[in-house]
C-alpha cells in the first residue's frame, strides 16, 4: 500500500551520504582542534561530553534534515519552501546539541511541528504518504522520544510526569492514525481499494486490446463451463481454500497450474460464490508465480492485474486485517503481499466489468445476499 515515490528515492541516498559526511566532518574537526582552532575545540568538547542519547538525537535530526533538503527538488511552492526551512532547522538544532544547553525545548517543538505539518499535508491530500515520508517520521518520532526523555522526570510533579509518560505513546499513535487516514482518504490512481495495488497501464485501450480482452473473456467462459459443479473442479485437481465468514466467495486453487501464464484453460483458481442454494461459479483467478511480477495484459487497461499489499494474515481461521503504516500487524498474524492476480468474472459484473479486482457489490449482494 505504501510504496517509494519515484521523486523521493534520492532522499534515502542523502541520509546515507550524510552519515558518511559526518564521520569525515568529525575527523576534520579533530584535525583543526589539534591545531588549536578555538571553535573546533569548543565543539569537540561539547561533543565528547554529550551522552550517547543526545548524540543519537542529534544524528537523527541530521538525517531528517538531510532527507528534507534532498526532497526539495521534487516539491514546488510552499511545500518545497517548508522543506528547506525544516531541513536547515534540523541541521542547526543537531549542531546546537553540542554547543548549547537550551536545545531540548526548541528541538521538541521543531520535531512536533514537523510531525503535525506532515499529518496536515497527508490528510489534506497535498502529499501522498510513501515509505520515505513514513521512515522520516519514524526517525523524527525516535528523536522526539529521546529529547523528551532527556528531561529529568524525577524533578517534576506527578501531573507533569504523567503527561510526559503518556505524551510520547499518544504522539506515536496519533501519527500512525493520521498517516493511515491520509492514505485511505486519498488513494492514488493505482489503488483500487484498500490493500489492492493496480498494475500501471495506459489510460485507454486500443481496438486490438479490446478484441484481445473480449477473446480472453470468451475463452475463459468456455473453459470454465466444465467446472459449474464444484465436484468437477475437485476431480480436476482444484482444492477449496479455507472458508471465512468474512468472505462470501470461495477460491478453489490448483497448484499444478502455478506456472501457467494467463492460460484460460489452466487458471490458478476458480471463484465460487457461497449462495443460499450452494456454490455458484462466478469466475477465474489468474495469478503470477512471484510478488511484483506483473502478468501479460493483452487487453491493456482492460485487463489490469493487481496485487494485495499491506495485509495482515492470520493462519488461525484464515483471516485478514490491514497493516498499520508502520508495517505492524496484530500478534499472531504476519504481513503478506500476494503475487499479482487477474480476475475474469464470467457473470455480469455490473459497472466494474469482467476484469475488475473485485466482484461488483451489487452482483455480490444479488448472489449471496451479502455485500
Amino acid at each position, binding site marked *: 500500500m505504501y510504496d517509494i515515490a519515484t521523486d523521493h528515492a534520492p532522499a534515502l541516498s542523502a541520509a546515507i551520504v550524510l552519515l558518511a559526511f559526518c564521520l569525515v566532518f568529525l575527523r576534520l574537526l579533530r584535525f583543526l582542534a589539534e591545531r588549536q582552532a578555538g571553535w573546533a575545540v569548543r565543539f569537540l568538547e561539547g561533543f565528547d561530553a554529550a551522552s550517547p542519547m543526545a548524540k543519537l538525537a542529534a544524528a537523527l535530526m541530521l538525517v531528517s534534515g538531510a532527507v528534507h533538503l534532498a526532497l526539495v527538488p521534487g516539491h514546488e511552492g510552499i511545500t518545497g519552501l517548508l522543506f528547506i526551512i525544516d531541513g536547515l532547522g534540523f541541521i542547526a538544532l543537531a549542531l546546537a546539541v553540542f554547543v548549547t544547553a537550551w536545545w531540548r525545548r526548541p528541538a521538541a517543538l521543531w520535531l512536533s511541528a514537523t510531525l503535525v505539518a506532515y499529518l496536515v499535508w497527508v490528510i489534506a491530500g497535498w502529499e501522498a504518504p510513501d515509505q520515505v515520508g513514513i521512515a522520516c517520521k519514524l526517525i523524527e518520532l525516535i528523536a522526539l522520544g529521546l529529547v523528551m526523555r532527556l528531561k529529568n522526570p*524525577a524533578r517534576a510533579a506527578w501531573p507533569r510526569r504523567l503527561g510526559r509518560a503518556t505524551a510520547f505513546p499518544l504522539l506515536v499513535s496519533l501519527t500512525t492514525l493520521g498517516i493511515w487516514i491520509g492514505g485511505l482518504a486519498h488513494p492514488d490512481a493505482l489503488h483500487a481499494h484498500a490493500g489492492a495495488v493496480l498494475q500501471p497501464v495506459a489510460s485507454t485501450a486500443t481496438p486490438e486490446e479490446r478484441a484481445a480482452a473480449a477473446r480472453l473473456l470468451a475463452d475463459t467462459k468456455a473453459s470454465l463451463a466444465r467446472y459449474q459443479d464444484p465436484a468437477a473442479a475437485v476431480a480436476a485437481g482444484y482444492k477449496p481454500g479455507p472458508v471465512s465468514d*468474512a468472505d462470501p466467495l470461495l477460491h478453489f486453487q490448483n497448484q499444478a497450474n502455478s506456472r501457467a501464464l494467463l492460460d484460460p484453460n489452466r487458471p490458478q483458481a476458480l471463484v465460487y460464490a457461497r449462495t443460499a442454494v450452494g456454490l455458484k461459479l462466478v469466475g477465474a483467478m489468474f495469478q503470477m508465480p512471484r510478488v511484483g511480477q506483473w502478468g501479460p495484459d493483452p487487453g491493456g487497461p482492460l485487463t489490469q492485474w493487481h496485487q494485495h499489499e499491506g495485509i495482515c494474515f492470520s493462519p*488461525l481461521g484464515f483471516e485478514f486485517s490491514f497493516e498499520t503504516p508502520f*508495517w505492524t500487524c496484530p500478534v499472531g498474524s504476519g504481513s503478506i503481499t500476494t503475487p499479482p492476480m487477474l480476475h475474469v468474472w464470467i457473470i455480469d459484473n455490473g459497472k466494474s466489468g469482467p476484469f475488475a479486482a473485485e466482484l461488483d457489490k451489487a452482483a455480490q449482494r444479488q448472489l449471496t445476499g451479502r455485500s
Partner: protein
Amino acid sequence: MDQMTATDSRVEIAGVLVVLQASFSLVAGLSAIPFGIVEPGFRVLSVVTILVAAMMFWLARNLRRGRRWAWRWLVLAEVLSLTVTALLALLPIGTIRGPVPVLVNLVIPWAVLVLLASGSSRSAGPRPGPADPA
C-alpha cells in the same frame, strides 16, 4: 553537557525504542478490533496485541528503574520478534518490502537487543532519572 552515564543512556534509548514498539502494537491491536466483528480470530488477536502492548509499556518502565527481570523479558521478546520476522522474510510472501518494515521489524528490535546487551552490566537496583544539565 549531559551528566548521564553511557550505560544509563543506553538503557534510556532502549526504553524509548520499546515504548515506540509498544505504541505501534497498541495501534495494531486497536485497528484489528473492527475486523473482529466479522472475523472471530481477530477478536482474540486484537485483545492479545493490546495486552502485549501494555506489557511492553510496563517492561520499558521497569527497565528504566533498573529491574533485572524486565531486562530478561525484553531480551526474550526482542529475540522472539526478530526470529519470527526473519522466518517470515524467508518465505516468498513479501513481508519485508522497503525501508519502513526493515527499520520497524528488523533494525529497531536488533538495536534494542544490542543496547540491552551493552547495558547489562548495570546494577539491578533502582536509580534516579537522567540528570537535567540545563
